[in-house]
């Protein structure tokens, strides 16, 4: 009956957001009077797997097939089904990210299980199994009740603070017999962007718009991002003008970010842009136009010329970091 949670890892380390998912699973397990079985797919050290105990997993089910080091959604689905069957689980949790969004809907379809995609709350069990999620690109929230016996949830990353406790998970091997179809997709080429923080996971983001005047000024954005340890993003017109690569575009038709801090420089704040960033915890807007609509959605605002403000802000961050040491 345990709660099953899919754990993601990269280069030998469990991703922070997967600790969030395990902790979330532990919260649900506590509410429903059961335990957590974390599912680890592919190659990972025992010590790393045991550390899942610090976020509430009692047990790790490890499918040690090296082919699973990269995403094979059908194989992942088969492995999670096998784990759920072994444990007699009724609740399966993944992350609302690229991997989770390829796997969780498959599980839902297979198990005739209701799916909440992008959970922002623990289930309210007093009224069924009701979970809050964002709809209309963050302009509203919906309270979704899962009415089926089996339930599948993808948790929105960066929703809950991690709270480490004492604990060590026990590791059990899980054998899954995969078919050819499970590995039907062949990966031909992987291009990782080196030296950058993946935008979707960035806790801090510095983003530039047309107010940056041209690609030659992006050094100012990058310096601030580097000083903060932030990812860099941009608005749609900037990507369309090829000042910045398309993967940096955030907004309705680009990527979505939910960092703790989003610093928007020279971005007016069109509703399409806000749709991609309104999950940010704190928003700082720097714009020379005091009437820019983005100020209405911001926590902190600075009116002035970005070319002058950015170096000052970078310097201030640098001083702050030095004083912290």
């Amino acid at each position, binding site marked *: 009956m345990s709660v099953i949670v899919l754990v993601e890892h990269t280069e030998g380390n469990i991703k922070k957001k997967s600790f969030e998912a395990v902790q979330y699973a532990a919260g649900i397990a506590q509410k429903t009077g059961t335990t957590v079985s974390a599912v680890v797919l592919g190659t990972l050290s025992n010590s790393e797997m045991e550390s899942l105990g610090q976020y509430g997993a009692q047990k790790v089910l490890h499918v040690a097939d090296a082919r699973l080091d990269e995403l094979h959604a*059908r194989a992942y689905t088969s492995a999670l089904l096998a784990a759920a069957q072994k444990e007699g689980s009724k609740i399966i949790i993944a992350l609302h990210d*690229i991997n989770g*969004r390829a796997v*969780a*809907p*498959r599980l*839902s*379809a297979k198990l*005739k299980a*209701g*799916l909440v*995609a*992008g959970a922002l709350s623990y289930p309210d069990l007093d*009224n069924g199994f009701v979970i*809050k999620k964002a*709809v209309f*690109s*963050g*302009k*509203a*929230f919906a*309270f*979704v*009740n*899962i*009415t089926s016996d089996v339930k599948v949830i993808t948790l929105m990353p960066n929703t809950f603070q991690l709270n480490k406790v004492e604990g060590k998970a026990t590791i059990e091997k899980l054998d899954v017999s995969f078919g050819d*179809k499970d590995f039907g*997709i062949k*990966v*031909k*080429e*992987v291009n*990782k962007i080196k030296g*950058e923080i*993946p935008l979707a*996971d960035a806790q*801090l983001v510095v983003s530039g718009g047309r107010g940056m005047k041209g690609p030659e000024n992006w050094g100012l954005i990058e310096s601030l991002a580097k000083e903060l340890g932030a990812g860099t993003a941009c608005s749609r017109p900037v990507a369309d003008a090829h000042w910045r690569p*398309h993967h940096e575009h955030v907004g*309705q*038709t680009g990527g979505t970010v939910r960092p703790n*801090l989003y610093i928007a420089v020279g971005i007016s704040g069109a*509703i399409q842009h806000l*749709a991609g960033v*309104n999950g940010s915890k*704190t928003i*700082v*807007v720097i714009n020379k136009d005091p009437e820019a609509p983005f100020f209405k959605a*911001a*926590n*902190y*605002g*600075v009116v*002035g*010329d970005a070319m002058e*403000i950015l170096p*000052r*802000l970078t310097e*201030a*961050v640098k001083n*702050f970091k030095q004083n912290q040491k």
Partner: protein
Amino acid sequence: MKILVCISQVPDTSTKIVLKDNNTAINNQGVTYVINPYDEWYALVRALELKEAGIASDIHLITVGKVDTEPVIRKALALGGDEAIRIDADSHDPYETANYIAEYAKTVGYDLILCGKESIDYNNGAVGAMLAELLDTDYIGFASDIQTDGKTATVKREIEGGEETDTCSLPVVIACQKGVAEARIPNMRGIMAARTRPLKVVAPAAVSSVTEILSYELPPAKAGIKMVSADNMDELVELLHAEAKVI
């Protein structure tokens, strides 16, 4: 090669969301509905390009909705496509929607099913992968480039911190995002032609929903912005540290 493009009707991006009936429903008075941008700009246009290149023979468009969704599916037909199918059901549950589409798709047998990466109303992004499971095919999400010869597909997709190129054999379900194709504007000829193209109305298969939306909530109003002088970036950093606690 037959392509099915999934089309979802959504409120226009600029819509202000207003709740009604004790916060249990969205007030659709004055709301303008459009084709979900990811379905239109990327999935549909890529399907049309494949037909223009002589690779695809038939492009079908499918939507799940009541009669009030017909103007939007007609608008999609004005961009192109040989016929449209409307499954006559009102669904907010991706499991239910995916089952309706899958049941219809089985009767035709498509080589390629394209959808947007998510719809901008309920933001689930789940129907594509569910369809793949129900049709026992592969699924590739977050695609930014799709090439196919009618037998196999080569797809660039987003991964964390980069991009990868995958190949797989057809049939496959692919969810599209930016890069797959460039937006098009329907021309008068397309709009006229769309009127004569068939729009089939199909009764939904017997499927029960597995989720229900009990109520909605609007985000709390921002507590008010704090302005910081452009000359005092040390103050901003201090606020971000001590007050917002983000650095």
